[in-house]
């Protein structure tokens, strides 16, 4: 997979031939210093961006030349996003935020509310359903975001520095939860630059200057023990 960005007149070759295969049920950490191309890779996998060349196959489905509409449908159906800065909509309650992907799936309001409440319960925030994001702590916000990512029951969970804005204790809290999701069978792909967080995954892929430097399986460190 290749990707370049035009910067003024010159072009910056960010991904210089990435070949990566992730199996169902894996939990992969993508590491690398800034500028290594890890976020670009995640964006391409997340269909937020497209590769210049190469192919991307998701669950047997080639993702290529997507119209905006089709990309929206695929994102909604196959992918769940977790961001460093949570990216909750600030004027919507926790429940409404979780229900949003279900709205775009075309579910009825009642069904949406029920499902969203169920997922909020899974991240043990059912009591906070009617609260606005600003009334929640960082850890709670990220849990709402995870509930939202899970709401549409995606095949693949993409996390971009999910613990980047959290303190260590809360980070481990969140990681414990993500590990639990993985145990339940969700495939998880996360970008991080923290070694301890990466070691909580089952596989670490290290990027440098747009190529894979190292790709190894690791012994997962369970986060629960730190909580």
């Amino acid at each position, binding site marked *: 997979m290749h990707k370049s960005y035009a910067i003024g007149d010159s072009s910056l070759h960010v991904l210089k031939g990435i070949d990566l295969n992730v199996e169902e049920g894996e939990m992969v950490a993508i590491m690398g210093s800034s500028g290594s191309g890890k976020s670009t890779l995640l964006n391409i996998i997340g269909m937020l961006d497209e590769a210049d060349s190469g192919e991307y196959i998701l669950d047997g489905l080639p993702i290529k030349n997507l119209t905006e509409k089709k990309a929206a449908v695929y994102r*909604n159906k196959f992918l769940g996003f977790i961001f460093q800065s949570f990216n909750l909509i600030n004027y*919507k309650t926790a429940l409404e935020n979780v229900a*949003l992907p279900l709205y775009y799936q075309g579910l009825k309001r009642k069904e949406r509310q029920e499902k969203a409440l169920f997922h909020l319960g899974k991240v043990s925030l059912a009591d906070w359903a009617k609260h606005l994001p600003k009334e929640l702590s960082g850890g709670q916000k990220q849990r709402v975001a995870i509930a939202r990512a899970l709401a*549409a029951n995606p095949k693949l969970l993409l996390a971009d520095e999910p613990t980047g804005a959290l303190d260590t204790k809360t980070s481990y809290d969140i990681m414990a939860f993500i590990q639990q999701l993985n145990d339940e069978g969700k495939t998880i792909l996360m970008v991080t630059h923290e070694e301890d967080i990466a070691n909580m995954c089952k596989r670490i892929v290290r990027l440098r200057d747009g190529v894979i430097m190292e790709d190894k399986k690791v012994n997962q460190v369970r986060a629960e023990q730190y909580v």
Partner: protein
Amino acid sequence: MFDIDLWREIFQSINMNRTRSLLSGFTVAFAILLFTILFGIANGLQNTFAEAFVDDANNSIFIRSGRTTKAHKGLQAGRQIQLKNEDLDYVKNDFDDKVEFITARIYKNFQVSYKGEQNNYNLRAVHPDHQFLEKTKIKEGRYINQNDLNNRTKTVVIGRLVEEDLFLKTRALGKYINLGGIQFKVIGVFTDDGGDNEERLIYMPVSTAQYLYGNNDYVDQINLTYNPEMDYDQALGFSTLLTKKLKNRFSVARSDQRAIRVRNMAEGTKAISQMTVGLTFIILVIGFGTLIAGIVGVSNIMIFIVKERTKEIGIRKALGASPKSIVSIILIESILITAIAGYVGLLIGVGVLEAVGPSLKEYFIKDPGVSNGLVIGATLTLIIAGAIAGYLPAKKASRIKPIIALRND
């Protein structure tokens, strides 16, 4: 197509950003307010002009005669020109297709009495067509007809105020009144929008007056209306030709301004209708100018809103929002703000016109107001305006790349 959830989203968004929505709506509301008030005032001015001319048909031409001021064709200056029945017939027959109504007028003044009451009144002896020229409205009985003319009947049609003066509280119809010593039967009572003076008149058949007062065929004035299908220029051409022919008929010099006088109401009507058209045009230009300023204002604010909501739109897209749903949200929000704000402006404008309307009468503005058609038109314009204002920002929003919107900054 009606999607309750979409509306819920939009109302939530408007509600969460009340100040912003209010501000963007304000320009439009103000534009419509101005437009409504200006339009109402223009309508008021038009009403005033219309009323000023409601007394007489505005396609009237009056012909009068006087003394010659110039010697012509061997005739001396100072000769009295007298209009007669035959002149009326001449005009009627010669300009058959151009004349709509035509009547003679003889002016008299009489002491009129009924039982103990008496008063002085102006009298006009006329043809039946006079009713339409003067826009006389019959309240009771009938107007003078051809039969009265043929038989020179001693009948009169009296004004509402004449009846009030002479008959006090009783009805005049069918009674006999004394006009300068002769008994006349009242066959009709009329009203006239031209004011009290017009309602203190008495009409009588022209033939009766000619027979009783001098036994001649003289008339003081000929009034006619031209075919209303003629435009102003044709009407002016007609009166010019009429003047020329009449001057020829009476051997009056062409430059003699006093012997034959033809006055065409079209001259005044044309000036006024041109002024009204001009006024309406100016107001439309100002109104639409303000409206466009309003649209640009809303559009600007919508662009700002899109910029402010870039991140939110990015999130929505990442969660699976189609470009269409993003366009709908922004577009409908824009239309909604514009339409509601505009309507508020319209209501305030109409309210202001209703409130201050009566006190503007002394400034020549009568019954200012806007028609229902204009209100409906303005509403439609507002919806279209909202769509125009929202379209570019909405398009811009739908093109937002989630990757850029979600960049951690």
